[in-house]
């Protein structure tokens, strides 16, 4: 079902490999589970470790997770041909009629991979400081057009020589006022600010 006619709000979470998408999903589940019934669609290489990771968050039962195999084309599955992801979202909606929110996690891809708004209502793009503080300047549609840009792993910034002020300045320059949040799931395991943004994006 196209988002315009969909009942359950859907938020896409995309970004490069290893930037912390699955960890952010787990953090959001941990923080929001008390008030929000969440379902999750994962894309691409989804191992039992990933499932364990979400299960250990203690708030997401297996039956509320659906895995999509993208045929080695993670960007196609969230943007150009969203049919398999729509199937997964609709199956979650049909099996769990009380859901308040569905998170669609993309496979790890590159800076050009963004979600179609035929699949999600809002999208978060996750990069991390260890990928280099030049990433916001490189831009790409994930950095420039996502509804929320999350710059993760700020606790690593001193170790990798990343200048957070440079990242903040460059991101602000290309995002036309759209929000940017810095996170460290080590110091803030609940991703409080991102969770607050998600709450604001989901109608009460």
């Amino acid at each position: 079902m196209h988002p315009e006619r969909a009942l359950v709000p859907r938020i896409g979470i995309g970004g490069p490999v290893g930037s912390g998408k699955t960890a952010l999903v787990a953090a959001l589940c941990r923080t929001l589970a008390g008030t929000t019934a969440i379902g999750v669609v994962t894309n691409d290489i989804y191992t039992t470790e990933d499932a364990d990771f979400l299960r250990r968050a203690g708030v997401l039962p297996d039956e509320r997770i659906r895995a999509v195999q993208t045929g080695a084309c993670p960007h196609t599955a969230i943007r150009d041909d969203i049919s398999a992801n729509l199937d997964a979202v609709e199956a979650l909606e049909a099996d769990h009629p009380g859901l308040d929110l569905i998170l669609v996690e993309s496979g790890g891809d590159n800076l050009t991979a963004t979600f179609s708004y035929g699949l999600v209502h809002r999208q978060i793009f996750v990069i991390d400081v260890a990928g280099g503080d030049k990433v916001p300047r490189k831009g790409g549609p994930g950095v420039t057009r996502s509804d929320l840009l999350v710059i993760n792993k700020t606790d690593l910034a001193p170790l990798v020589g990343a200048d957070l002020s440079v990242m903040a300045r460059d991101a602000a320059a290309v995002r036309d006022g759209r929000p940017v949040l810095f996170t460290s799931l080590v110091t803030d395991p609940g991703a409080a600010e991102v969770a607050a943004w998600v709450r604001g994006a989901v109608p009460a």
Partner: protein
Amino acid sequence: MNALLLLLLDSRAPAGAQHHSGAMEAAVMAGLVTDLTGVENFCRTRLRTSARVAAAFAAAACYGAERPGFSALAAELDAEFEARTPSEATRTASRQLGGGLIRLARSVLKGADLDLGAAPHHPLALGAVVSRAGGGPELAARAAALAACAGPASAAVRLLGLDPFAVHAMLARLAPGIDECAADAARCAGQPPAALPADGAPALDLLPDYHLTAEVRLFAS
């Protein structure tokens, strides 16, 4: 072929095809396909077996969709196709592909009632969509047979790092066989569903269920 048919049958059409390898990933995992020759042998096996069945059912559905009483015929074709598809994983994949095409058709062919439900087997969906877009049984069969070869071949490019030009040249060598398969299938159109071909290959029936046991897989089937 009109532009609408070309559009619907284009591999870029958003119908979910790239999620499926037609058992190629399982064959690669099992070490049965390692190079271009292996891919060609795999495709030729499909062309003699599952592609022949898919083509016949697509032709039969296309023929029936142009005529009254298609709902009843579609139910019969569905049951006969199930009986010819012993792998549960293949049956699931076929319905996912059929459902993807129906989802696309509902957006593109406004008002078209395809009489097939939300997730029919792929050859039935293909036959009905081709009919509604102005094509005939032989074209539906050709599209089914081509997809049965081109899908796994494209997956092999991604899984084995093969030269895509060499793979397309290999598919072109299969083209006369694909046309022949389609012409045979078109002659089945209008026959009772139980009389349609029932060719199969044990490996193609076993690999898809083996595939589902892998912890890491890139393709849905």
